[in-house]
């Protein structure tokens, strides 16, 4: 027996530790259990992503057993519910791209101007009012914007362009752009406000105006945040559904002319879901193939955003 054990033994005999200070094993187990439960809650996000990928691929797999990938990518017709069925995703992609382009052309210039104005020009009081207002604008349900595009903007545009059809991608795209402005403006503004005041002072100290400081110092410094705001905006436009389902018309139309009606990937899914399609039919599976395409598209934007953020790492 060595001395340590001897001492320990003697201590044990002389003064047993009080119950309060003993290691509480049940408490330890309870703590671990709680941690495990919380971990499972956090893991729901991983489960959701996995489930999305699994469901989209499982259903699309069946679809691609019937439709060759070449037809899906290169056919110029999209008539999945007709007798003579064609599955050319290009038709839906053209609608998505056209309407998103219109939205981006509205949202990026206006959103950037608003962001620069709020971050560099506006007095404190204007910013305090404008930011929550933009947030409210961003919180309006998209079905409301769809109604607005169809019943307010389209008639308005028809006064200017008499030939414009009642359903068109232009009106839907413009309203979609307005819907995205708050995201682009708010995120870009956050990025610009994160630029340290010391850099602005350095610029002002050389006699630069606010606009010169904004264009030459603040925007270049915040470029990564601004770029990811744009990417998020584009991604929103690509995934937007209800505005297009309401105001864009749902006829598949291979066109890049925004003055025409057209279906997008998203509005096609809504159109099919509104009807009664039996589970397992080819029509049912087309919406998963379309959804997979949409998912890949947004994935591409996320990757571009990630790459941009890495490339323009903040240097301050």
């Amino acid at each position, binding site marked *: 027996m060595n001395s340590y054990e001897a001492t320990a033994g003697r201590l044990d005999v002389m003064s047993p530790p009080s119950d309060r200070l003993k290691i509480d094993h049940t408490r330890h187990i309870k703590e671990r259990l709680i941690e495990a439960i919380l971990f499972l809650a956090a893991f729901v*996000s991983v489960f959701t992503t996995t489930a999305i990928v699994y469901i989209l691929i499982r259903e699309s797999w069946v679809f691609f057993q019937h439709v060759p990938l070449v037809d899906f990518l290169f056919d110029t017709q999209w008539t999945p519910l007709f007798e003579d069925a064609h599955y050319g995703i290009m038709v839906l992609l053209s609608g998505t791209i056209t309407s998103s382009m219109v939205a981006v052309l509205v949202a990026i210039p206006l959103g950037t101007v608003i962001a620069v104005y709020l971050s560099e020009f506006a007095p404190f009081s204007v910013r305090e009012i404008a930011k929550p207002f933009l947030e409210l604008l961003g919180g309006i349900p998209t079905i409301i914007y769809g109604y607005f595009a169809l019943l307010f903007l389209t008639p308005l545009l028809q006064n200017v362009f008499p030939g414009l059809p009642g359903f068109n991608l232009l009106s839907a795209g413009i309203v979609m752009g307005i819907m995205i402005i708050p995201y682009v403006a708010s995120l870009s503004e956050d990025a610009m406000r994160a630029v340290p005041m010391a850099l602005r002072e350095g610029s002002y100290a050389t006699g630069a105006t606010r*606009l010169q400081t904004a264009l030459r110092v603040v925007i270049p410094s915040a470029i990564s945040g601004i770029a990811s705001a744009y990417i998020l905006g584009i991604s929103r436009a690509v995934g937007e559904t209800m505005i297009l389902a309401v105001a864009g018309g749902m006829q598949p139309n291979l066109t890049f002319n925004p003055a025409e009606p057209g279906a997008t990937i998203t509005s096609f899914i809504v159109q099919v879901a509104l009807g009664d399609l039996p589970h397992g039919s080819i029509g049912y599976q087309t919406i998963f193939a379309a959804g997979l395409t949409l998912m890949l598209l947004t994935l591409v934007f996320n990757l571009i955003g990630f790459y941009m953020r890495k490339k323009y790492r903040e240097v301050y």
Partner: protein
Amino acid sequence: MNQQELQALRAMIATHKRWDYMFGVLGILALMLALMTFVALFADMAVNGLGRINVDFLTSFPSRRAANAGILSAWVGSVLVMLVTACAAVPLGVAAGVYLEEYAPKNWVTDIIEINVTNLAGVPSIIYGLLALGLFVYTFGLGQSILTAGLTLALLILPIVIVATREAIRAIPQIIREGAYACGATTWQVVSDHIVPYSSAGILTGVIIGMARAIGETAPIITVGALTFIAFLPTAPFAGDPPAGLFDWLFAPFTVMPIQMFNWTSRPEAAFLNNAAAAGLILVLMTLTMNGLAIWLRYRLRKNIKW
């Protein structure tokens, strides 16, 4: 610097300031355009829909005749779906946020969870609809029910709740945690006695914003297969014959406000468009109130917080 040089300098500054001024005007114009859109949208719906809003409109089922149609089944459906969404998203989101801030070790599993939360926030809502259709409706066999819709929207707003929870928790200074640990508290005691109570206002803000988003979501619910014409209400617990179970309403078919509005918007008759405007007005007021409440809460929080 002589007078001539000074004159040249002043002329140049005047040019620069003109550009500065012009941009200031441009900024105000851009903001005004956003404001005008908001006003036009609101006024347009008010003009067309305000005449339709009365007690009958709120207490009637949809009908073939526009003048008799109402939003009873739609708002009841929305309330029930929101109830399911809140019950699922709030505990899950808060638990996930607490885990990521207070428990998660720095390792690849945590990284994967964080990447997933970020990415899910960017997934189009209609993809959630497809997920729900494939998983809840057909794989789990929950049917095209209130439960399915509520769970779908819960997954959709989960990232919002998680991010809000994390931000609120991150605002709590480390000394508060250290103070509690120094008293001998376990991690769970620190979380339940300090972290969650102190961040509850911030969490609430996120939950309200998430719910406002969920109540206006249309696409995923359509994809799940909500019916657009529902002229009955889910049976209340213990009502009917034979008596319904406590949770039977979860499996009832349903419609929600935005879908009712969508349905009326797609009708050609002007009378139905007025109904759509009325439903839209109520919907937009609901979301504005919720978002406004959240913004006000956050403002109060920022003003009152003192550590």
